[in-house]
Every structure is written in structure tokens, then in C-alpha cells.
């Protein structure tokens, strides 16, 4: 029994925690205001006026739509690959003990633990050594590699909570391996996989550092934004795209949270 229930936090701690959370959230909220500003040339605050015309302008920009379509396709395929590889790896690591198990978890985490620029330039130099031209698939190759870890983390956490005796019981009752997988294992890990898949999608959709090395001339949404950040051409359109990106990434985070909240694992730990 914990004895600290109902205890009040010291005022200083409350203020420090509240300030920290505000520091994390206010900048993102600011984006929403700027999407409506009438000012075109600078980032002046407060906005001289409010308008919704930039949404229409952005809607009619083919380059934004092209970037969006490429990003969605890359994220979808990378997520699919990561789901298969991450689940297989998690199943193997959590259900059995074997030599080199630790090394495999390290190998999965490495693409995210090492700075992105290393993954990026490593892939690029490999492509150049092997004479592989940049294409849709070179982007997918990079993204799938670091998306595996997100699926893996979620799946491993769920496998740990799933009792192995359920699988044995299923086999004892006469189900073969495939039936056991379909009717016992899959329902147990489905929500974790869905959560992992969504986070992997969000991760791929947002990734820019590795992509700059593997995309060549192609533009995903983050690359489009990066170009605008370095050489601003149309600030209002960038504001609107930024706001839409924030809204779009909120969805998978909330869904992943609701899918895994009954567990004690942290769905996104070690992004």
C-alpha cells in the first residue's frame, strides 16, 4: 500500500512542471495562429489580420499534393515491411532464449540510436558503391530500416504480457501452429501491432534527415518543408502545410495511446 496517496505536491514543483509542459506545447499552438495570418512577407507578431484564403491557395498547389502523395506511399509501404520484420523479430526474441538474443535487440535499436545522419550517409555511400540510382524504393529502404524498432518495441512489450501457457493450451486442445497463431496469438498482439504500425507510419511520414540522403530529386512533405525553411518562397503556404501536418500526426498518436493504454509499456519509448 502506498502511503503517499492524496499528498499535495509542493507549489514550486507544480509551477516548474506546468512551465515545462507549457514550454513543450505553446510553440506548436503558435503554428495554428500563423496559418490564418494575412502577412505574407515576414513572421510579424501579432498578425495584422486573419484570413482563410491560404487554405484555398494551398489546396490548389500541385507540388504540395505530389509531396503528400509520395510521403503517404512511402510511409504505407515502409510500415508494412516494418510490421512483418518487427513482429517476427519480437516473437523470436520474446518467446525463446538463444545465444545472441541481446545482440539482436541492439541491432534493431541501432538505426534509431545512432544519429540519423549516419544512417543516411551510410545508405547513400552504399547506393553509390553499388551503383543503385535514387528511386521510390531507396527511400522505402531507409524508412523501413528505422521503422522496425517502433513495431518491435510495441510487440515485445505485448508478448511479455502474453502468457506462453495460452499457446501451449491451444496446442494441447488440438490446434495446429497456424490455427494457434490465427486464433490465439494474433488477437492478443493485434492492438499492439496496430499501435506500432501507426507510430511507424507517423515516424516515416515525418522523417527528413535520412530522406535527404536517399531521395535524390524526389520531394516528400518534410523535404518540401525543409526547402521552404531554407529558402522561404511562400510563407503562408508553409504555415498552412505545417498546421495540417500537426493535425495529421495527432491522429496516430491518440489512436496508439488508446490502443495500448491498459498496458504499462510506453508505446513510443525510444523513437
Amino acid at each position, binding site marked *: 500500500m502506498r502511503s503517499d496517496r492524496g499528498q499535495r505536491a509542493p507549489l514550486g514543483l507544480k509551477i516548474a512542471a506546468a512551465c515545462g509542459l507549457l514550454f513543450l506545447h505553446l510553440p506548436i499552438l503558435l503554428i495554428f495562429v500563423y496559418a490564418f495570418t494575412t502577412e505574407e512577407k515576414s513572421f510579424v507578431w501579432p498578425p495584422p489580420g486573419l484570413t482563410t484564403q491560404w487554405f484555398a491557395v494551398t489546396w490548389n498547389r500541385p507540388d504540395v499534393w505530389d509531396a503528400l502523395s509520395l510521403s503517404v506511399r512511402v510511409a504505407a509501404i515502409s510500415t508494412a515491411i516494418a510490421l512483418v520484420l518487427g513482429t517476427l523479430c519480437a516473437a523470436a526474441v520474446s518467446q525463446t532464449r538463444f545465444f545472441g538474443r541481446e545482440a539482436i535487440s541492439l541491432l534493431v535499436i541501432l538505426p534509431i540510436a545512432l544519429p540519423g545522419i549516419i544512417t543516411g550517409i551510410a545508405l547513400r555511400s552504399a547506393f553509390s558503391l553499388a551503383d543503385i540510382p535514387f528511386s521510390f524504393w531507396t527511400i522505402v529502404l531507409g524508412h523501413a530500416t528505422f521503422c522496425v524498432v517502433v513495431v518491435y518495441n510495441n510487440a515485445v512489450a505485448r508478448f511479455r504480457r502474453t502468457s506462453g501457457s495460452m499457446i501451449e493450451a491451444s496446442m494441447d486442445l488440438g490446434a495446429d501452429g497456424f490455427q494457434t497463431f490465427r486464433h490465439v496469438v494474433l488477437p492478443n498482439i493485434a492492438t499492439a501491432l496496430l499501435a506500432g504500425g501507426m507510430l511507424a507510419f507517423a515516424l516515416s511520414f515525418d522523417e527528413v534527415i535520412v530522406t535527404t540522403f536517399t531521395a535524390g530529386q524526389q520531394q516528400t512533405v518534410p523535404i518540401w518543408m525543409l526547402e521552404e525553411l531554407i529558402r522561404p518562397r511562400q510563407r503562408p503556404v508553409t504555415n498552412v502545410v505545417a498546421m495540417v501536418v500537426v493535425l495529421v500526426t*495527432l491522429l496516430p498518436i491518440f489512436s496508439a495511446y488508446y490502443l495500448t493504454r491498459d498496458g504499462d509499456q510506453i508505446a513510443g519509448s525510444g523513437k
Partner: protein
Amino acid sequence: MTIAAVQSNPTPAILPGSGGLRGALSDLFWRRPKFLLLLMLAPPLLWLGIVYIGSLFALLAQSFFSIDEFSGLINREFTLKTYGDLFQAANLDIILRTVTMAALVTLASAVIAFPIAYYAARYARGRWKALFYLGVMLPLWSSYLVKIYAWKLILAKEGILTWLLAKLNLLWLLDGWLSLPIVGGNSLSVSFTGTFIVFVYVWLPFMILPVQAALERVPGNLVEASSDLGASPGQTFRNVLFPLALPGIVAGSIFTFSLTLGDYIIPQIIGTSRLFIGQAVYSQQGTAGNIPLAAAFTVVPVVVMGFYLWGAKRMGAFDAL
């Protein structure tokens, strides 16, 4: 159901195999779990082994090549000359600047993260706990570029921060800070201070999560026992809380340190023209076309992180991840 009914309809203890290819495979997997294990591990290991480890070795190999200074062509022969170039004063400056920035960012993140993590771990319950969790996860997963963009809006000369300070009659403070050497500059968005703030902002959630995980495991009565024994809150923090939270802080610092070492986008968008390791790598492989030097540069963060991880493991940081 009566006992007789069960006895009259006996089920064999061992069911016959279901037959067919599917049955045979299923039986094989059951009899030889090692075969199943191999089959499960092969695809992810092949993928990561070939795509990732293969690429890393390709990169490492490149760092032992050198560039011909006259023709600009890459000479594919083993040499340590490129690593020698790394020790030129200009390049050492870049490395030192990046490592210093990474250390400062890690320190600041730890200081800001601790109260949030402590409150969430010890006092937040039920709905508030969920709110804190989402409050950290949302910024963590929000778009990286959008976060940088938001700070470009905030730190711009005509932006909200200058406006706010003007309203509070504190502009002299900002001007005074900007006139300082090294940390100052024309405006916050082109100074090291700006780079530092954005680094801390972007990597802060990576620090909060492991610190919170470490603090969740500290029993509340330990803190009470400490104050019962006459320790002041400061002493309790120094002698009880901080040592127990340290593995979490070290685990978080792995992320903040490593991510700062490798980032090239934040200092490019918000910062001075003086380079960080990431920018040096990017410009060497891009405009300069000197892939060997770029590769040698990337070995620096790997080596630094290697030592860092080794130290972190000794402090038990991996249990807090």
C-alpha cells in the same frame, strides 16, 4: 453432464495429425522449435544485416579512401590521410563545438525534465497521469520540422518573443544578451542561443520519458523516511531522489546527446554560419564531394557515442530504458 456420458464418448489423448502440407509444416515447427526460430529471425536479420550493417561498413570503408586534391576524384586505396585531415584546427573546432553543445543541451534537458517527470511519477493520478503522458508524447511525435519552424516564428526579430519582451519593457535584456560574444548575434534566430533553445525543445521529451520511468520505481515512503529522519527537501533530493533517478537521466542523455551530435538541420535553420558535425558531413558529401572526409566525420559521433554507451551501461542506464 454425467461421468458416464464422458466415458461413453472418449476423446483420444493424442489427436491424429491434420495432414497435408499445412499439417506437416505445423508439426515440423512444433518438433523443431529451432527451425521455426531460424525462419522467424532470418527476414529481419537479413534486412538489417544487409541494408543497415552493410551500409555502415560501406561508409567505414569510404573513410579509408582519400580524395585527390587536384582532380577531385576519389582514390580507392587504403590510407589514413583522411583521418589526418580530421585533426586540422578548423575540423577540431567543429568537433569541439558540437560536443560542447551536446553536453549543454543534455544538462539543460535534464534540469527542465526532472520536475515534469517527478510530478508525473509521484503526484499525478488517473486523468492527470494520462494528461501528462499525452503531454509528453504529443510534442515527442509532432513533426520535427514543424517544431523547428515554430521556433523560427518565435525567435524571428519581428516575432512573438521580441513583442513580448517589448511589452514587459525587457528589450534591454535581450539586446544585452545578443551583444555578448559567442552566444549573441544579430537576432536570436541567428545565434548559438537560438540553436541551443531549439535543441533543448526538440529533444526534451526524450529525456522526460526515461527519467519518469526511473522515478516511478522509487517508493514514496523512501522520500518520507528521509524527511522523517530530519533531512531537508534539498538533502532528500541530493541523497535519495537524485541517485535513484540517475540511471534514468543517463538513459535520457543517451538520446539528447546522440541526437544533438548528429543533427544538421537545426543549426542550419536556426544558428550561425559556424558549422556543427552534421553540417560538415552534409557539405563535405554534397557540395564538396569529399565523401571520404564526410565518412571520417561520421565516425566521430559513433566513437563518442561508443564511449558514452559504455559508460552508461556501467551506470545501469539500460535497465531504465
